[in-house]
């Protein structure tokens, strides 16, 4: 049991080390950096990448936090320089509003289409009459 606990402790320690940010920067820096793209990487945020630009972006974020800037102000600083592209989540305005609205519209249309297709329809009158007639007929 003691061995098990010891192993568990080591494992938890290793796990914490993997995900914890380096000690010189606060977790808030990484939280903001996660919302920003790394300009020189593919599919990596400024929080994960070790490229020079991403490291510098984290330093800048840390400095701006120290100056008392809000996360929104810090993100705006990068948008000023790189455009909306730098944000992982497209802003919900202008042309990129469509990125948010179109999937919802598509889902709605799909739902309507499926409903119309599978909706229970009343059987045609002549079929019903035929069925009734057959029921009344004595079995052959």
């Amino acid at each position: 049991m003691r061995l098990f606990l010891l192993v568990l402790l080591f494992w938890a320690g290793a796990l914490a080390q993997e995900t914890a940010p380096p000690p010189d920067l606060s977790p808030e820096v990484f939280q903001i950096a996660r919302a920003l793209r790394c300009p020189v990487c593919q599919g990596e945020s400024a929080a994960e990448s070790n490229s020079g630009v991403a490291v510098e972006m984290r330093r800048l974020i840390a400095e701006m936090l120290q100056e008392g800037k809000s996360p929104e102000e810090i993100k705006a600083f990068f948008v000023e320089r790189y455009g909306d592209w730098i944000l992982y989540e497209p802003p919900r305005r202008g042309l990129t509003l469509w990125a948010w609205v179109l999937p919802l519209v598509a889902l709605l249309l799909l739902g309507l289409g499926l409903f119309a297709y599978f909706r229970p329809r009343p059987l045609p009158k002549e079929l019903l009459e035929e069925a009734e007639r057959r029921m009344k007929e004595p079995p052959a």
Partner: protein
Amino acid sequence: MQRNPKELPSVLAQERRPAPDFTLPLLPPYRAEWGEAFRLGDHLGKKPILLNFWASWCYPACYEEAPVLESFWRRYRERVLFVGVNVQDKEAEAVRFVEQFGLSFPSVFDPRGRVGVDYGMYGVPETFLIDREGRVVLRHAGAVDEAALSRYLEEVLR
């Protein structure tokens, strides 16, 4: 879409914003002529400026454009100021690069790459053109070739 993918849209260039100012130490080979530090603001609004971000580890693109830049600098130095910004590099390696190509236009040393972030730089090499009024008018991503460079310079000198 842009016709030329090397002319990446840049917030600065699209809106013709004033070029962000910076003061950085010059690489040792340029200190005799330009002083210890270089302040872009001292030169803005006088004549057009070509700002080229480069690094010695940027192979082959930076190695391809270095001779082109040097030959154009020799031809245009009276009319356009060329400034190199060496980013995320080691000083000794940057100096070796400068000597290898005999680059005579001044280059500043920005090991942290802060100026690059200020200009919205993606990666080296990248070139920005600043007009006479001190506004960014163009960003070129990747190595510049002779055709592109002469087109840009003629445009900014018109």
